[in-house]
């Protein structure tokens, strides 16, 4: 078990390395020169090409942009190892601080999303499998398919118009993570306030994954139900509830857990649009703003962390798989 963990961690290293290489290569695609961009805004008042060129040069040296590519890469790697992602080009604040501020928000959003998706998809998929080809199965298939095809930003806009600040109902706030004076609320009140703000964004993030996961759950459940042990359990006279819950569902859940690894990174990317629409200061929005401003350190850090989170979630779901399924051991069979 521990050996498996160590082996997996070791396998992660070359992948991690590859991630840093690719991230760095991408950033260097840029034709724009951040030093020039930076200098331009600062030296608008300055006249004369010479003065401008000198400022650009100095800025370049300051950020170490005058070194060849591999030197910059090695330097960046060393910094990363110390968890120092440098300072943002935009406002000179340390990149880590910015990300550390945004990360918990995005994580909250995504973890809530994953929880809700699982809580809803598993029963839906399981029931559709139990009553296969029945009305529930067919109806849910159509509904889920429609949900899957709806573009998330359209749904977000429709929700804002109908349920948010528009002319119709005004049930939910449409901007931000919490109200302005939320810090004055009690602990419970604060959670309630944040939750109230998150209803619409989380809705937009969850509905697309329902289809995928409940389909999977249905397929897995169908396979399990056909097994002999389920038939035996039923023949033994166990109640349907016990058969389903204790025997069938548990086994059907196993492949679903591994999907968690693939769900999370998709959510990270999907949050870019949703966070932008609902003005939530999370990583997606930070990423978008940095991309607009060509803020290299932040973009690199975000891409790296995104890929890192993906790796970690894949590792976690693999571990979960091993924990949950007693048939899987990694000791050599003697």
């Amino acid at each position, binding site marked *: 078990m521990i050996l498996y963990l160590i082996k997996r961690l070791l396998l992660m290293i070359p992948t991690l390395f*590859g991630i840093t290489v690719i991230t760095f290569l991408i950033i260097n695609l840029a034709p*724009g020169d951040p030093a020039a961009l930076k200098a331009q805004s600062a030296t608008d008042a300055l006249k004369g090409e010479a003065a401008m060129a000198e400022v650009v040069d100095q800025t370049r040296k300051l950020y170490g942009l005058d070194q060849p590519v591999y030197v910059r890469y090695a330097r960046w790697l060393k910094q990363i190892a110390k968890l120092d992602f440098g300072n943002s080009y935009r406002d000179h604040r340390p990149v880590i601080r910015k990300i550390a501020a945004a990360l918990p928000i995005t994580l909250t959003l995504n973890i809530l999303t994953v929880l809700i998706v699982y809580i809803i998809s598993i029963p839906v998929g399981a029931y559709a499998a139990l009553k296969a080809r029945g009305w529930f199965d067919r109806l849910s298939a159509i509904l889920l398919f429609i949900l899957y*095809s709806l*573009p998330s930003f359209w749904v977000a806009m429709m929700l804002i118009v109908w349920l948010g600040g528009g002319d119709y109902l005004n049930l939910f706030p449409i901007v931000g993570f919490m109200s302005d004076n939320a810090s004055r609320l009690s602990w419970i009140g604060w959670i309630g306030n944040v939750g109230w703000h998150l209803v619409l964004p989380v809705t937009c993030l969850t509905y697309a994954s329902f289809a995928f996961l409940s389909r999977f759950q249905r397929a897995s459940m169908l396979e399990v139900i056909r097994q002999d042990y389920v038939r035996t359990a039923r023949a033994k006279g166990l109640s349907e509830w016990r058969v389903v819950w204790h025997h069938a569902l548990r086994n059907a859940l196993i492949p679903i857990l591994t999907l968690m690894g693939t769900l999370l990174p998709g959510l*990270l990317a999907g949050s870019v649009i949703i966070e932008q629409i609902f003005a939530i200061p999370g990583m*997606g929005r930070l990423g978008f703003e940095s991309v607009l401003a*060509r803020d290299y350190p932040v973009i690199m850090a975000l*891409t790296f962390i995104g890929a890192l989170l993906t*790796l970690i979630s894949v590792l976690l779901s693999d571990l979960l798989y091993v924990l949950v399924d007693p048939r899987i051991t990694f000791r050599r069979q003697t």
Partner: protein
Amino acid sequence: MNSSQSYSALIWRQFKKGRLAVAGLIVIVILFVVAILAPLLANDRPLMMRSGGRWSFPAIHLSNDLRGVDFKVMAGEKKEGLFMIFAPVPFGPNTYDLPHVLEKPNRVHFLGTDGEGRDILAQLIWGSRISLSVGFVAVGITVIIGILFGVLAGFYGGSIDLLISRFIEVMMCFPTFFLILAILAFVGPSIYNIMVVIGLTSWPGVARLVRGECLKFRSREFVTAARLAGARNRRIILRHLLPNALSPVLVSATFGVASAILVEASLSFLGFGVPPSSASWGSLLSGAQDFMDVAWWLTLAPGFAIFLTITAYNVVGEGLRDAIDPNLRT
């Protein structure tokens, strides 16, 4: 039961049995036709006109003496011997009609007008060109690169496989949309860049598929037979391997088009897509955002267009997947 039938004919027969899938295919074909015929469907220049005894087709080709002419005004003048046929939607995507701004759907503008008086239906029709072209080109790139790497990895195996598999794994770790955004920020969001970038970020999935199929078929008898028959080059074996490996790729490509269209719409929505001079469905939606308090219905048309297109491709993809599955043969 049946006389020998080619594989593709078999799949087509199975596909036809699904009503929903066929409906999706019809929608796709209609969209395709609309996109190709866009200049003939929505144009502020007449399709055909006769003036002073001479015929001309201003919608397709504008001769120099007709440049800058406002054809509607000309039609209104009712000169002698003037004859004009306009397109079904007599507005171009960039025809400003400032007196008629933010109109609800009416007789003149079938789907209303946007904040600058442009006809929504015309913009939808021309926008389909962008969505469809981005979808197909991006998926084309994805499939070509994916097949290349997949075959290299699956067929040759060994260290090449190891290297390519690592590469695929690394690429799949990146959150796709954010990666696309990042690359586009650096190379600039033009329509060609968008196509290429979307294509470059989706190939790992296809490569994995192809690799799996190649691994599966590598040890089959027909490959051994071909080798024994002195297959001149690996190329010939690829001609045996590839046709079998392609069916899941076709399914993946169909879903890929839907996904590419969605990504393009999202990019345009965020303001990072095609330049605003060419109307894209996503930019239509983002334009509608500004007027949500006075004209919220502006979001309905482009959103529904995106939804319909994506649904059609998804339905066809599902239908294809079921048609290929040998367990579901009826």
